[in-house]
């Protein structure tokens, strides 16, 4: 059984998971073409994440349970998604009455990523029950929970998340006593968290107290457009670009082992090797862009299947579990988010939402539509970085102007590259407990 090793290789291509702390000396020797979207430090931080020696103190032990729940409104599950019928979330319970922190994952990710694990540990250590949830753009969520099957609409995704949270909390063991509920999320999950809190403000079913957005986008569409641009610059369009990238990385990794005359013998070994073959800005950019594209492929596939838009799936002959999806994957690798919007998302929502236009759909997925709430309600907080590559300058300024003293902007970290650092964690806990301003910010 060599699964973990195999997944370590995934890190070669998805690098985001390879936060093995392998900040090797000399790794910056090569520099690639500038992307113009982020500087070298931001790209590097985004890929490698927080170095282990900079991580905030974490508890020795964190209890963990996995909850699988079939939601009453689940739609007919397509054969090809047979494994995603139930929503899967993770829960860590205190053995005393405590506030609950709900944490939402980033785009395309499940509810138990390494980043969530860090946040879970920090929150549990600070005395919270912790519930970690997948992103509404994660295929497991789209199939088990989404009422539309077409992910990416902030309001719709927020409503689906909110409904799922109520079901989960109602099914928690009786011994779990919840005194208060706060909500957080990173990346797209940050925007999701804010929207869920705003929905709850109207419906009042959970009485969510505070929300903290960690490296959120302002406009979902602007942010993903930046990632698509990163893909086009660092990998090129479509198939040949991915093939070139693959050849480059395969050769480097194989040569690394040839030079050292040994065979990769365990997963940490291969993981470290995979991380160390990423050297230039172009490599980092490609790794970030490809990670995002892989997430988009799943979302695109599910959306096309549910909406029946027929871009890669023939609605009359949907794929069966025994069918090869290699060709479908190949086509989807070449499709940017703009195609998802134009070919799946917009056709679906324009048909289902009277009086909507493509422009109104874009506006609906911009935090600006809840700008007034963010400005006046003291319970919304954010943390971001001045070099976060999913924000442009006007967007960062808008966040600062809107949240005022309730935002912390760090001078490093790129996108999520400082998540788990001492400062980020202590500020986050201050925000959640309402002590943020008192701590002198």
């Amino acid at each position, binding site marked *: 059984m*060599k699964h973990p090793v195999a997944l370590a290789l995934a890190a070669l291509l998805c690098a985001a998971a390879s936060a093995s702390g392998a900040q090797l*000396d000399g790794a910056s020797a090569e520099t690639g073409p500038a992307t113009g979207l982020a500087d070298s430090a931001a790209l590097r931080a985004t890929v490698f994440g927080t170095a282990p020696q900079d991580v905030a103190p974490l508890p020795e032990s964190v209890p963990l349970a*996995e909850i699988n729940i079939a939601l009453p409104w689940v739609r007919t599950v397509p054969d090809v998604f047979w494994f995603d019928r139930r929503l899967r979330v993770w829960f860590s319970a205190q053995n005393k009455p405590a506030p609950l922190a709900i944490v939402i994952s980033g785009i395309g990710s499940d509810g138990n990523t390494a980043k969530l694990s860090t946040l879970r540990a920090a929150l549990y250590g600070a005395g919270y029950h912790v519930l970690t949830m997948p992103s509404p753009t994660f295929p*497991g969520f789209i199939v088990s929970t989404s009422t539309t099957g077409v992910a990416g609409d902030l309001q719709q995704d927020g409503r689906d998340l909110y409904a799922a949270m109520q079901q989960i909390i109602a099914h928690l063991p009786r011994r779990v006593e919840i005194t208060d509920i706060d909500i957080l999320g990173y990346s797209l999950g940050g925007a999701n968290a804010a929207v869920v809190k705003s929905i709850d403000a109207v419906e009042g079913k959970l009485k969510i107290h505070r929300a903290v957005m960690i490296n959120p986008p302002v406009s979902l569409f602007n942010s993903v457009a930046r990632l698509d641009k990163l893909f086009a610059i660092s990998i090129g369009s479509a198939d040949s670009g991915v093939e070139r990238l693959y050849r480059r990385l395969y050769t480097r990794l*194989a040569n690394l*082992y040839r030079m050292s005359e040994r065979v990769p013998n365990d997963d940490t070994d291969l993981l470290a090797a995979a991380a160390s073959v990423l050297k230039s800005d172009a490599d980092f950019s490609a790794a970030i862009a490809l990670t995002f594209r892989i997430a988009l492929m*799943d979302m695109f596939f599910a959306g096309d299947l549910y909406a029946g838009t027929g871009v890669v799936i023939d609605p009359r002959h949907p794929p069966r579990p*025994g069918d090869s999806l290699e060709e479908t994957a190949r086509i989807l690798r070449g499709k940017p988010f703009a195609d998802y919007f134009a070919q799946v998302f917009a056709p679906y929502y324009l048909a289902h939402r009277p009086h909507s236009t493509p422009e109104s759909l874009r506006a609906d997925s911009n935090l600006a539509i809840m700008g007034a709430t963010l400005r006046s309600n003291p319970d919304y907080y954010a943390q971001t970085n001045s070099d976060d590559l999913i924000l442009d300058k006007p967007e960062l300024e808008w966040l600062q102007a809107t949240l005022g003293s309730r935002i912390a902007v760090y001078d490093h970290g790129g996108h999520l590259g400082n998540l788990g650092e001492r400062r980020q964690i202590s500020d986050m806990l201050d925000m959640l407990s309402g002590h943020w301003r008192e701590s002198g910010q």
Partner: protein
Amino acid sequence: MRVALCLCFAVWALDGCASQELSIRSLPPETPAADNAAAIKNAAALAAVATAASHGPAAEESEHAVIPLTTADAPSMYSYDPWERVNRFTYRFNARFDEAVFLPVAYGYGRLPAPIRSGVHNFFRNLDEVKTIINYAVQLQPAAGAHSLGRFLINTTLGIGGLFDVATKFNLESEPTGFSMTLSRWGLHPGPYVVLPLLGPSTLRDSVGLLADFGVAYGINLADLYRGDKTWAFGVVDAVDQRANTSFRYYATGSPFEYETVRFLYVHRELIEDDALHVKDQPKVRDVDKPAGQ
């Protein structure tokens, strides 16, 4: 007949597990503080290796002999999978079996005290040294064989029958090999991708290697462990130990493309292994139009 009945029951049981409305499964606790401490140590070790590699003479010396690959030598991105339909079915069966039987047992095992688990783990890995020694012998790698023989002798004696991995403490790290690697040294390609029932992703060469290694272990029958009913008990404990030490989770990706992803990673990892084993040969000539492994 009895086998057929058992299979029917298994399929029914697996179906039943998947249709439950709510399940709360408690997992072994996470240990973030210890994990981070290990990561710090790891990073320091890596940095040391990198510094040594960039300054040491060893790297230069070996460069004379090693023929570096160029991007043209990389195998195709696609994998050779002529038995895809059966493989996909097996993959799906494995996922269900894992969810319903294998994982719950492994999680239960994970709650045993750590010294017991490491004892069991060391014991089985020590048994594996036997096949490692034999394969190094067949591969004509006396140094590596002696290394593994040393490990085996130390761990079997000082390590009380293999329960403690004393050798690693003496800086004799484990360097396992198997018949699949022997075949690779002899120049055999991985062949088609195969998903083995219960065991998971493999290739034809790996499957043959697995079978041969087991055959040899069975033939040697060390300490009479490979005969009679206890063989099954040992096999099950070994499997549970391996599962508990493997973090892979079927369909954790939630993705419809998981089968393709795992296949790509498995086959290409094996090809990298191949390339690493044949450093002094001219790179293999690969037909880029043919899927990797064909």
